[in-house]
């Protein structure tokens, strides 16, 4: 009589313990991630200015958002920055990984050298590159001192080119990390297949193009997902590198959202821009993730 009850309790406990253990983190995630997403969404329909308010004003904030030239600049900048950043990082990362995979000497030393920039925060990267790119003290100045007087590299001071300096700094920081991801992918490829292909007379180029790179698909996916979210949320790099300047030329949606919400006392517009950012990411990522994750079945 006693035994079944005991075992019953035990199985029930075993069923419940994982749920109990996970409950706090699930609850906090529900509140601090999804709860605040809903709250931000709600704020975007209110007339909140300096502090949150709860008077609804409909789509007014969205209407104002799309009238603002700064927002247009920010969105265009994000398009330029994200596409170049992702493409160049993947290209450099893949190339480095393939070179490192040639069983070369000193790989153990080279790998961390390429990987180390990732250990820095974007603030450090931004500040270092700000000095390097500053024509008055950085690369241009140094080359002038070395005698190359005609050298000119003032992108960071030019409204039209400054966004590309953000790309340079970001690529420098992240491509080593992408390399590590691809290297792991390359090491995971079955040697038997490669040997078989070589027996059949495949050239090195064809080996990579037709067999190895297609097999790196999961690595491409992870690289894309990680780089895309880094690009959309990049705030610190721009703040440290250019402060959004010259003028407003390197404003990104993240810096726009911050300045409207916190320094311009326009919390409603800031919230609206945050919602638009979320929607944009969702529109890109959900179909991609859905397609990629569904396939194995």
């Amino acid at each position, binding site marked *: 009589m006693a035994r079944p009850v005991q075992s019953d309790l035990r199985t029930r406990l075993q069923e419940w313990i994982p749920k109990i253990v996970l409950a706090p983190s699930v609850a906090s995630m529900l509140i601090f991630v999804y709860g605040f997403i809903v709250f931000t969404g709600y704020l975007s329909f209110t007339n909140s200015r300096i502090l949150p308010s709860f008077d609804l004003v409909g789509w007014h904030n969205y209407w104002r958002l799309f009238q603002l030239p700064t927002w247009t600049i920010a969105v265009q900048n994000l398009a330029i920055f994200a596409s170049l950043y992702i493409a160049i990082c993947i290209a450099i990362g893949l190339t480095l990984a393939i070179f490192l995979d040639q069983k070369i000497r000193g790989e153990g030393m080279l790998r961390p050298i390429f990987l180390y920039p990732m250990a820095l925060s974007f603030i450090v990267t931004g500040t270092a590159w700000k000095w390097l790119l500053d024509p008055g003290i950085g690369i241009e100045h140094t080359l002038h001192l070395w005698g190359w007087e005609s050298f000119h590299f003032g992108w960071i001071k030019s409204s039209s080119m400054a966004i590309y300096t953000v790309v340079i700094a970001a690529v420098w920081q992240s491509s080593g990390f992408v390399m590590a991801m691809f290297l792991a992918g390359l090491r995971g490829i079955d040697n038997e297949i490669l040997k078989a292909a070589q027996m059949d007379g495949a050239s090195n180029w064809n080996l990579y193009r037709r067999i190895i790179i297609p097999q790196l698909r999961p690595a491409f996916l992870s690289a894309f997902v990680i780089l895309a979210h880094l690009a959309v949320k990049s705030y610190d790099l721009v703040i440290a590198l250019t402060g959004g300047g010259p003028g407003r030329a390197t404003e990104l949606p993240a810096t726009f959202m911050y300045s409207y919400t916190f*320094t311009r006392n326009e919390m409603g517009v800031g919230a609206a821009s945050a919602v638009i950012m979320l929607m944009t990411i969702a529109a890109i990522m959900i179909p991609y993730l859905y397609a990629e994750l569904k396939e194995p079945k």
Partner: protein
Amino acid sequence: MRSYIGRTLKMASVLALVAGSAQAEDVEVLHWWTSGGEAAALNVLKDDLQKEGIGWKDMPVAGGGGQSAMTVLRARVTSGDPPTAVQMLGFDISDWAQQGALADLDKVAADGNWDAVVPAALQKFSKYDGHWVAVPVNVHSTNWVWSNKKMLADLGIEEPKTWDEFIAAMQKVKDSGKIALAAGGQPWQEATMFDGVVLSVGGPEFYKKAFVDLDPDALGGPQMVESFKRMEQLHSFVDPNFSGRDWNLATAMVINGEAAFQMMGDWAKGEFLRAGKEAEVDFGCFRTPGTAGDVTFNSDQFAMFKVGEDAQAAQDAMAKAVMSPSFQIAFNTVKGSVPSRTDVSDEEFDACGKKAMAQLKSASENGTLLGSMAHGHADPASVKNAIYDVVTANFNGDYDAETAAKELVKAVSLAQ
């Protein structure tokens, strides 16, 4: 191991006790006076309060214009733990008072007779709904030009009186191979120059119509186009490396003789003084040419936040100390500004300070004491920043003068 943890805990609790007891007599002050001249000026108040046994918990948040400081403040107020006093400018004070976050200083104000000694234009910001909520520390004005006297003498340049003379003088400097205008390419610095430029084009009437009444005809009119054209003229005299430079570095360029002029508020004077330079001997100060007799002011104030009763006495003592003539003189001689009360003797001030005090008084009497747009004394933050956007876009060459005037009307109407 256990004894180690025990000791640490005990120490932590002792520390917490010390911190707790200190808090009752301390004032916690949030400010962005971090550059050399500014920090030195603030030390005067720190010492004054220390003499009365009130501790000073410093909370500096760097960043001219105080944008980062305001972000910190929002977090503190939202979490229900506001600092005692916060350095604040213009409409920010009214915005916070509107949220019901500020303390009532009427009793201290009545004791000190503040109503009679503080200029009315300042009271507009220190009071909300008829009650004193903030203590004005100083009056700065933004339509100043600072010059390197030695450099001008070497080049045979007289102090310019009109805009055309100013342009001619800068051209002469540029031709000599030096930098004519030391500028920092940050939106607020460009807007600071814009204050003086708009005033020089249209005079106080136009300034009021454009920046205080936000009249679309004034904002998009021919005088505004002319103002933007003058900004473009100024842009042709800055060095190519100006963007992103901090204002005090630009001042240092004038101090070191790399550049001839800087158009900046009189906080720049603090930097000259700290470098051991003498007013009207080593460096010159004059109003933006074309704006003689007018003063665009901004006033640093300490907005007092509602604190618990135990901290009330320290807060009142601090408010009183800030308004005392001795502090006003000691602080403002170091900071470069002028006292916020008009009954203070100008004896201890330098030549530029004497000039500024006399001009402030006469401008206040003539009604030409105007709130500075660039420093939030003409419009709330949202409108101010909308104007910044257009000014910086024009100064960096993205908008020509006509487009800028059109965009200004649009930006201001969107921000209202």
